[in-house]
């Protein structure tokens, strides 16, 4: 079809973004494998051109603003389904963006991360389309199952909105830890890679939140000390993958007790990485 159709604005932006990327990034973007459904998009809406545009637009944040340092990227499986489970914080999901860019930049062979979005995100104009094009997945069971069966690499924040909405006083304290990621990992035999993000919890200190205001489905409105994120330094730690397949059968995904035990194991692993990251850190901005 591409020969028949004049390039759209998105095509032109994507082409430009790709040429503007430095060679190391370009090599990664060009090396991405995805399930092309015939028109340059995968069935869930991923578009490599938009990945390039996103990387081009957000690279400044990754390299210059948050100056991301990551540790243990070799723990990310090079192939097959896997779930990254991370702590979540920051008022706005820059932590997800930085993990996404870090995986894109440093995974070998290059892999594109599929962040799992909360239910309200697909209802947001522009945001939902952009997120879908860069690979994010609406967080319904069917989509996630499909992605895992296709061997995708997912990013899940088990704390959900409780994590991103935590107050400054609660920083680096893991909130209610949902179990869905472990249920999926057990059912689809996917390893879980615990991830800790250090820095994001101080980027936009949250004083409180307006409950009961649900603009376009957003669960609450955060009251932030700073309207823009502070230039904290991000440290991302990838822990050793936890493989549940040797201890649990797929059917165990239906056993709430086993799932809860497994989720606690992931939570402890993330907490250990957070503690290590905080110990190693020399300062919020360093």
């Amino acid at each position, binding site marked *: *079809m591409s020969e*028949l*159709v*004049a390039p*759209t604005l*998105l095509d032109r932006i994507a082409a430009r973004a790709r040429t503007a990327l430095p060679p190391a990034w370009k090599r990664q973007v060009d090396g991405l494998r995805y399930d092309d*459904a*015939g*028109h340059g*998009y995968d*069935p*869930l*809406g991923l578009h490599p051109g938009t990945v390039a545009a996103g990387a081009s637009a957000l690279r400044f944040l990754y390299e210059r603003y948050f100056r991301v340092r990551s540790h243990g990227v070799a723990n990310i499986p090079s192939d097959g389904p896997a779930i990254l489970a991370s702590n979540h914080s920051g008022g706005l999901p820059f932590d997800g963006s930085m993990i996404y860019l870090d995986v894109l930049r440093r995974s070998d062979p290059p892999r594109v991360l599929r962040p799992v979005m909360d*239910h*309200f995100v*697909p*209802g*947001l*104009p*522009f*945001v*939902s*389309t952009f997120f*879908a094009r860069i690979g994010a997945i*609406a967080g*319904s*069971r*069917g*989509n996630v199952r*499909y992605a895992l069966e296709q061997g995708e690499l997912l990013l899940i924040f088990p704390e959900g909105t409780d994590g991103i909405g935590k107050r400054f006083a609660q920083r680096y304290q893991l909130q209610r830890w949902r179990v869905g990621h472990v249920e999926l990992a057990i059912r689809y035999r996917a390893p879980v890679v615990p991830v800790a993000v250090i820095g994001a919890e101080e980027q936009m200190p949250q004083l409180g939140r307006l409950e009961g205001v649900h603009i376009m*489905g957003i669960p609450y409105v955060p009251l932030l000390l700073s309207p823009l994120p502070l230039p904290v330094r991000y440290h991302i730690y990838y822990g050793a993958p936890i493989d549940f397949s040797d201890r649990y059968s797929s059917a165990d995904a239906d056993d709430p007790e086993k799932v809860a035990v497994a989720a606690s194991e992931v939570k402890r692993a993330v907490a250990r990485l957070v503690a290590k990251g905080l110990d190693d850190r020399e300062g919020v901005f360093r």
Partner: protein
Amino acid sequence: MAATTRLLLTGATTPIGISLLRALLDDPAIEHIIAVGREPAGALGLPLGERLSYEVSDLRRSRARRHLLFGPAKERAVTAVIHAALHRRAQDSGRQIHDLNVEATRELLHLAERHPTIERFIFRSSAAVYRIVADKPSMIDEEHPLNLGPEAPQWIRDRVEADLTVCTHMGLSRLKILVLRCAECPTPNAGSQLYDYLQAPVCLRSLGFDPMLNLLSLADGTRSLRLALACECEGILNIPGADTLPLSRVIAASGRRVVSLPEPLLAPLYRLRTAMVGSDFRYDLNSWRFHFSGVLDGRRASAVLGYCPQEPLQWPL
């Protein structure tokens, strides 16, 4: 290819019906096809003869349905029914439309159960039966919720009711029942809302949303029905097409201009357009799928039927 050699096909004068007839007539194993339509036989554009007969029948009428199954279908000892007759015009509504879409389906199924030779009932349903909303999967498998919302227009409600009517007989009937939920086939005269949408030189779409669509070519739709005839299986199967792309690309590939507008303006503007130029496109039928992605997951059809989409659409449509 076909295990079935004598069959009855409703909706024979639709594009998919004609395409299927051509394909089946090329298959020497097919002994006879009774094609059924409301139009005169000339609408079929195929030579009638030893292997193809045509019955003009108004399926809205119970007597006509009985005559069809216990007249020509009994004489010819057909063993399978492919029911593909659904009212195509989205602007029409009312009891008679419901009679064709739902009551005809229900009674054909009952009659087929009592018929001495019919063993198989294949219903060509559509992806329009699925509910597409933000918090449901965009990859639609056969377990996906159906659009049973009270706000759904009759065009959709009828399709859901007909589909469910057939599904409720599975496993309880002596017939082997297969429901094919086909992706939209954007072809003229096929009842395709997307095709009608793309007839306007300027297509309006909702600002900030660009959902993924899955589209089926006539060739793949035909092939899925042929595979269904060749298979002894029963159940519900999604039939996706080879084209999965965002709405914006569909519009661009069709050589149309696009104007993105806030959602509340679209339905009134399209109603105005219908009033002025008589288009069959209804925004209220499509508002959700023009917001949120809905792509059929065809893995069950691949496993059961051996169907995988192969023939992309010819662009521009």
